[in-house]
Each structure stands twice: as structure tokens, then as C-alpha cells.
């Protein structure tokens, strides 16, 4: 099941008393309440995480998952509030993709001290009071994008000079900053003659991403490549390349996956997608928490990895599932 059962009030009070003596010995229950909190509920990426989490609950009948998230990633304060409210409900475990690295620390530490199992995913939180952290190494993944871009240019015989446009979904978001940094550093290392135009920020709006890509192309005659650091920007970029039939002249690489990006990969508008494993984060996050409840010791950091997907490998079953985790929805 995936809806939260209500705890009777008495039990709540009983638990409140327990709270004064932290780190009780784990009592085994036949039903555990898990809270999964994502950064936002409005995008495919986070929906994939939730699919993973819910699947884990379906695979393991002892787990009941309730999902939470603010409407948009910009609502950092709202996410902290949600976490506080969740901690107050005393679930057995919390799996959280924290928007901020610091803001959630107090609430998480409090939960940890109450004996709640804490698994953080996607973004590192600055505390040791967690049981495990599962995430993509975004700097490394950004580097992979640069590597792939350079490889493709070489394969096409395009000389490594000219310009590469960088379209970023939003300013001031840590994972994007990491991706862009990974990409920029690696590209400078591999092809020092290439100039990076951007980043152009587009408020995570596809239409604005379209305009940004168009305008970069208009202003610069020698654009040989593009990098888009999430799916919204990838969609916008793919649109422009398709419309202008630049598949053969410009190498475009983007992050994440959604149906539009997959199509673009097929058509060659995007040469590669750097995929994280949101499903895996959700699924493994819940499973790790369960393991912790069973008394197992977990690794402090699990790199959920990033995968470079191209037209060539996109039809392998494992990659297909990575591209579209809804295929795995139970």
C-alpha cells in the first residue's frame, strides 16, 4: 500500500514518552511507515523517484510509503516545513531529496536522534546523522557530458574550436551548478580552444530555453555544440535543432530524460543524454532504509551513477528502463 495509516493518539503519546530516551532498541514491526520527500512534485524526474519508492513498497509488503513534496523546487522553505511536519508524525524512516544542504539539518538530526532512519538522496546534506546518502556525482556526470561532446565532434571531424552554448535551467541551484562546473572544467581541459557561451538561465521554462538557443545561434556563427543541464532545457534545445535541421552541424548533449528528449535522441537532435538513476534513488533509498531498520549497516555514500545514453545503446532493455522508469511502474 502507499497511503499512510493513522496512528491512534494513544500510541502517539506513548512514542512521545519514548522520545526522552533516544536510541531505543529497534522493535520489529510488521508494518513500517516511510516518508519519501522529494524536491518538487512538478517534474518527470521527481515522479520517477516516486515510482521507484512506491515500487519498493510494493515489492516489500512490510513497507508503507507516503510521498511529499512542495509544488516547486524554489520552495525551499516549504520543503523544510514539510520535513518538520513529517518528523512530527514519527514515521519509521525518511527518504529525502533535500533542496538545501543545510536547511534540513536540524530537523533531520532531530529525527535521527528519535531513532528515525534517514536516507538522503540526490543532494548531500551537511550532517553525519544520516544512515546513507545515494546520489549522482553531478560534477562527474557533467564531465561525462563534455567528454561525449568532444568525442562526437571528433567523430564528425569537426575541429575543436568555435563555440559551445550552455543552457542552464535555473540560476542558483546546487546540482545544476555542479553539472555546469563539471562540464565547463572538463571541456576546457579537453578542448581549450572552444569558447563557452553562457550559461543562459531560463527559469526552467521550455519556451525560454527555445529562445535562448535560438538567440545563441543567431549571435554566433560558429556554434558547434550545446549542453543543456536538465530535461526542460534539453527539450528546448532539441526543438531548435530539429526546426533548424542542425543535427549534422551541431553536437547537442543534454541531461536527464523525458519523452521529448528520447525522441530527440532517436532523431539525432540530441547526440547523447546523461542519465541519472532517479528510479534507483527512490527504490534503493526505500530499500536502504528498510535494511537499516533491520539493523544492517549501510554505506555512508552510494553513487547511483550516471549513464551516457546514445542512439546506439538506447534500445538495450536496461537503458530503456533508465530512460523511462514508468515502464517499471507497478
Amino acid at each position, binding site marked *: 500500500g502507499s497511503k499512510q495509516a493513522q496512528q491512534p493518539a494513544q500510541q502517539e503519546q506513548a512514542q512521545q514518552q519514548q522520545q526522552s530516551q533516544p536510541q531505543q532498541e529497534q522493535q520489529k514491526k510488521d508494518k513500517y511507515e516511510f516518508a519519501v520527500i522529494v524536491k518538487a*512534485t*512538478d*517534474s*518527470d524526474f*521527481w*515522479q520517477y523517484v516516486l515510482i521507484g519508492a512506491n515500487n519498493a513498497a510494493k515489492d516489500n509488503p512490510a513497507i508503507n510509503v507516503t510521498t511529499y513534496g512542495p*509544488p*516547486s523546487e524554489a520552495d525551499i522553505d516549504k520543503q523544510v516545513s514539510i520535513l518538520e511536519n513529517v518528523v512530527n508524525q514519527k514515521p519509521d524512516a525518511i527518504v529525502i531529496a533535500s533542496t538545501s544542504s543545510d536547511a534540513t539539518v536540524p530537523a533531520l538530526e532531530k529525527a535521527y536522534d528519535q531513532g528515525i532512519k534517514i536516507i538522503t538522496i540526490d543532494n548531500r546534506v551537511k550532517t553525519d546523522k544520516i544512515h546513507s546518502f545515494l546520489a549522482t556525482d553531478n560534477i562527474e556526470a557533467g564531465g561525462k557530458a563534455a567528454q561525449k561532446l568532444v568525442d562526437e565532434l571528433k567523430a564528425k571531424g569537426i575541429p575543436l574550436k568555435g563555440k559551445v552554448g550552455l543552457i542552464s535551467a535555473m*540560476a542558483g541551484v546546487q546540482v545544476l551548478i555542479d553539472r555546469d562546473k563539471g562540464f565547463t572544467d572538463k571541456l576546457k581541459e579537453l578542448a581549450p580552444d572552444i569558447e563557452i*557561451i553562457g*550559461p*543562459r*538561465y531560463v*527559469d*526552467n*521554462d*521550455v*519556451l525560454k530555453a*527555445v*529562445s*535562448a538557443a*535560438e*538567440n*545563441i545561434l*543567431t*549571435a554566433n556563427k560558429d556554434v558547434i555544440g550545446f549542453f543543456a543541464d536538465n530535461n*526542460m532545457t534539453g*527539450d*528546448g534545445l532539441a*526543438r531548435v535543432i530539429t*526546426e533548424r535541421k542542425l543535427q549534422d552541424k551541431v553536437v547537442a548533449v543534454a541531461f536527464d530524460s*523525458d*519523452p*521529448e528528449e528520447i*525522441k530527440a535522441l532517436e532523431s539525432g537532435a540530441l547526440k547523447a543524454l546523461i542519465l541519472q538513476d532517479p528510479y534507483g534513488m527512490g527504490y534503493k533509498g526505500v530499500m536502504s532504509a528498510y535494511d537499516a531498520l533491520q539493523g544492517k549497516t549501510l554505506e555512508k555514500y552510494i553513487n547511483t551513477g550516471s549513464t551516457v545514453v546514445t542512439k546506439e545503446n538506447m534500445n538495450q532493455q536496461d537503458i530503456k528502463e533508465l530512460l523511462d522508469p*514508468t515502464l517499471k511502474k507497478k
Partner: protein
Amino acid sequence: MSVNTKTKTTLIKGKSLSEGTILIVFLVLFALLSLAVDGFLTANNLSNLVRQTSINGVIALGMTFVIVSAGIDLSVGSVVGFSGMFAAILMTQAGINPVFSIIMALIAGTLVGLLNGILIYDGKVPPFIATLGTMTVFRGVIMLISGARMVSGLPESFVNFAQTSILGMPSLFVVWVLMILISSFIMAKTRFGRNIYAIGSNTEAARLSGINIRTNMYMIYGYSALMSSIAGIMLVSRLANGIPTAGGGYELDAIAAAVIGGASLNGAEGSIIGTVVGAMLMSTLRNAGDLLGIDPFILQILIGALIVAAVLIDQVKKQNK
């Protein structure tokens, strides 16, 4: 009498002084950019420019109706997203043919406007609050019906529309021009248009003159929602996908376009042509900023400053009269 009395301009034959000012600002800017920015005055870029403006431009037309009636419509962005998502779902998951899907989506979107009208007229809820409510509610509805996921696999014919040209002009721009013509015709030549100004100027006097305020309010907010719905369809065609977050924040752009174009938030002032110039001014700035490679943050600061400056110049001009 309120603070804003001072911002009012002389309306002569439906044209306000402000329009003139902003048109001049726009033309000067345009001339400067043509000279100073390589690649600005090219067919390609101009076609980009008008296309980039079209979708927001259509929304701003409906917003002008609302603002002239002394109202405000914060729900336009959600209506854009809602109608687009609705059409996308009908076309894909329900397999309904594009034309029919579009019609249904336009109707559904327009009904949101009707709801606004009912809340505002019958419920006497101030427009800001009523449309803030529907904005929030319908963003939630979009998420619910789409499961917060992108909807893809739209029919080719539909997706191609945004790419095609009609008489050498981008099709989206043609839609905008059509809507401009219809809207300015309504504003300037029809009874409904006059009623909007009358309601914006003095609702009580309008009522005592036999104007049916209820019907007109329904029509005003319905028209705004219809424009947003059309913009929503244009957006889906352009992006080839139904995107759950699409349209978020568009209300501020639309309001800014109308006000830069001389509309007063106190009602009874504003015109379609002013709004069109206002919308063009904003997107021209963004376009030129990108072409010049101006630091995006500095560009943002400049755009903010220019929104204010446009109105400021108009004020200074009026004072010197």
C-alpha cells in the same frame, strides 16, 4: 481618488498618449539595436523575435481587456498550461483528432475564465484574489490530470503547425496578428469594447446606464481565458509536448506588457496597440541582450529597470505638458 490618478492619460479616439511614448521608445531602441547589434536586423532574427513574442503577446491581449475593465487576471499562466495539457491529453491518451481536441481545450480553458467572472461578479471576490485562487487551483488540476508528467506523442500535423510559415511569416506570428486584429476591432468598434471601458471607468454608472455587468464580466474574463487557451495550444504545438509547468509566471509578463503599453491598473485606460508594443519591447530587450551576450543577471536588471523606465518617461513627458 487614488494615487494613480496621476498616471492617467488622455484617451482620444481610443488612443492614449502613453502609447505614443512607448512606441517612440520602442522605435528608438529598435533603431539603436539595428545599428549596434550584429545579427539583430536579419530576417532570421526578426522572425525569431516575433515568434518569441507571439505566445506571450496573445495572452497580453486578453489581459488588456481585463485591465481596462479595472480588473486583473493572475490565472492566465495556469490557463495556458491547462488548455495546452488538456489538448495534449485528448490528442494522445484519448486519441481524439487535433481540431476537435483544440476546440474542446479552448472551451475548457474559457470556462476557467467564466469561473473567474462568476467569482468576481456573483461572488464579489476581488479579481486579484479570485484569479489568484483559480491560478493555484488549476495548476493543481494540471498536475492531477497529467500526473505531473510531460505528455508527448502529439500528432505530427499538430506539432508541425508551429514550424510552418504562412505567407512567409511564422504561423504563430500569424495567429498573434489575427488575434491583435480581432481584439483591437472589439475594443475600438464594438459595443462590448465600449462597455469594457465604461465598466473600468465607473461600474455603477455603467450599471445605471443599462449595461449588463454580469454578462460583460463573464465575457471579459472569458475572453482573457480564451486568449490564454489559444496561447496554451500555440505553446504545446511549439514545444511538441504538454508540459505541466508550462505557463508558470506568464501573468507578470502579460501584465507588464499591458502596463508598459499604457494600460492603467485603475481601469479605463489602455489599448491593444499599446500592449502589442509593450510586449514587443520586452522581448526585443531579451533578444538583444542574448545577442550581445550580456551577462544574464545584468540583462535581468536592465529589463527590470526598463519596465520602470518606460512608465517613468511617460510620466515625465506628461508633466512637462
